[in-house]
């Protein structure tokens, strides 16, 4: 199994604020990694750094052995790294189909072929009945599905999902989890930023925890849940028990 994504020593400051400090982690091919942490921990910023929307101050990111720091977002996408945004950014005036076709054009400029690929991606996320709907008329959840379909149309090998489950009810979370499972079954390497514990536990075997821009823990779900640093970051020192006492699973 090769390393799909290697992040090493990644750092970024905005003025006086150290948004991300010396972040390092490795994602193996076809693995699903969850990136978690309290709000403001630097998760979305990490995505911006990895995908080229912000230029890292120091550090390196390599995707399948290829260094990508310094590349513009469109080049990063062309190399096989796609992402969704925390707040969906659909092309409102276009239909769902056109939105996804725009993604498909990266790999093939022929309109007919792009249309077929787009339809496939749309079917995968379950949006087929809204194919002709204007993106701005979709519900928020459907806009997120659209975002995912659009990213999928670029035929990525690595997919970065930013809080796709936020605001979903339990049934919807299950659907989303199943979707992520399907993506993984297709061979995709996935990095998912999430707050919804249930979803994280269901999809990820490998978790990285950030707080104030730094990695404070890394490991399996079980290890993370028992890690005093993680508990301190989320709930404060008052909740940290000595190891071995009290309950210790999600």
């Amino acid at each position: 199994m090769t390393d799909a994504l290697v992040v090493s020593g990644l750092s970024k400051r905005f003025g006086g604020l150290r948004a991300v400090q010396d972040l390092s982690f490795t994602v193996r091919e076809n693995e699903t990694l969850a990136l978690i942490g309290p709000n403001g921990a630097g998760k979305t910023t990490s995505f911006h750094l990895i995908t080229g929307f912000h230029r890292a101050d120091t550090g390196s990111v390599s995707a399948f052995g290829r260094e990508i720091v310094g590349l513009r977002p469109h080049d990063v996408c062309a190399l096989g790294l796609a992402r969704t945004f925390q707040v969906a950014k659909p092309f409102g005036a276009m239909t769902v189909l056109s939105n996804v076709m725009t993604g498909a054009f990266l790999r093939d400029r022929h309109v007919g072929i792009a249309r077929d690929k787009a339809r496939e991606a749309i079917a995968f996320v379950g949006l087929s009945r809204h194919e002709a709907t204007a993106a701005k008329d979709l519900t928020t959840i459907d806009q997120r599905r659209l975002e995912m379909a659009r990213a999928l149309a670029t035929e990525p090998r690595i997919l970065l999902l930013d809080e796709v489950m936020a605001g979903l009810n339990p049934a919807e979370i299950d659907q989303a989890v199943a979707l992520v499972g399907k993506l993984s079954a297709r061979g995709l390497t996935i990095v998912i930023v999430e707050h919804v514990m249930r979803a994280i536990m269901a999809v990820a075997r490998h978790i990285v925890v950030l707080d104030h821009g730094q990695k404070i823990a890394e490991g399996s779900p079980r290890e993370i849940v028992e890690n005093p640093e993680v508990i301190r970051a989320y709930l404060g020192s008052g909740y940290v028990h000595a190891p071995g006492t009290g309950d210790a699973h999600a």
Partner: protein
Amino acid sequence: MAVRWTIPALLLLSAIVLVLPQLVHNAFALDIFIRILLFSFIGVAWNLMGGYARQLSLGHAAYFGLGAYTSTIMQVDFSISPWIGMIAGGIVAMLASLPIGWLCFRLRGPYFTIATIATAQALMLVFLKFRDIAWGAEGTTIPNLGSSPLMMQFETKASYYYVVLGLLAIGLSITYRIEKSWMGYYLVAIGEDEDAAEAIGVNAPRIKRDIYMISAFLTALAGTFYVQYIYFIDPATAFSFNISIEAALVSIVGGIGTLWGPVIGTVLLETTSALLQSWLGSTTGGVQLTVYAMILMAVILWRPTGLMGLVSEAWQRYPGRKPAGARAAP
């Protein structure tokens, strides 16, 4: 648009447009038609960049002027045919759009617009100053050669009509091809959300640069035509802010980012202008622009998608329709 009667309607329209100069001989009327065709063409050129990709330039007069001056200099100083000069002007404009674009695209939104205004004004200043190559503020007339098709001079207005009609046809067909291709989708994506477009592999800076070049090229062709039509050029006319305004205006009023929008917008605005002129006589420019400004405000406040937006919405209510192409109904 996948409606049954579009093709026959288009054919009918084309037939009328082609035959018009044979039926109408009134010089004033023909002049209006020529103006309509010319400004439709300028609007179509603007629309590629400003309508689809929402890069709202108010400095397209820069390219109009560059085209006009290039062909005129080549003609007056070197006796080269304006047909060649027209292409040369287009190329000059394309090349100029590279540094201008590089500078202006460093700003987003309204500041981009301001930067484009400033560059057009700056070019006007340059041409006002440089008497050596470009006759300075007084400009020049081009020698009247009577009927000289090879030098783009004709005796009848009808011939000018067909030339500019040809230009418009070229502009419309380029727009149509682009709209239906991957580039059309990319342009609209950039116009909607440039960051999201980048995230799915759209090289926004390059696409913006490319569409700017095409837009500049076409606008320059219009500049050459205009000089040939009025036999005169000076910096105030060639780089007139009014041209930049009208280019944007006709597209917005008619339907920004649509194929026929600029044409519809031009028909409305130029007809209004002609009517005003005939009711009020030859007045100060103040009236025309006041009316244009009011129309623009009305469109922005009530129907930002323009007249095409109205048509499109009405069409949506027509049973059995399906939207086609990149854009859904507004």
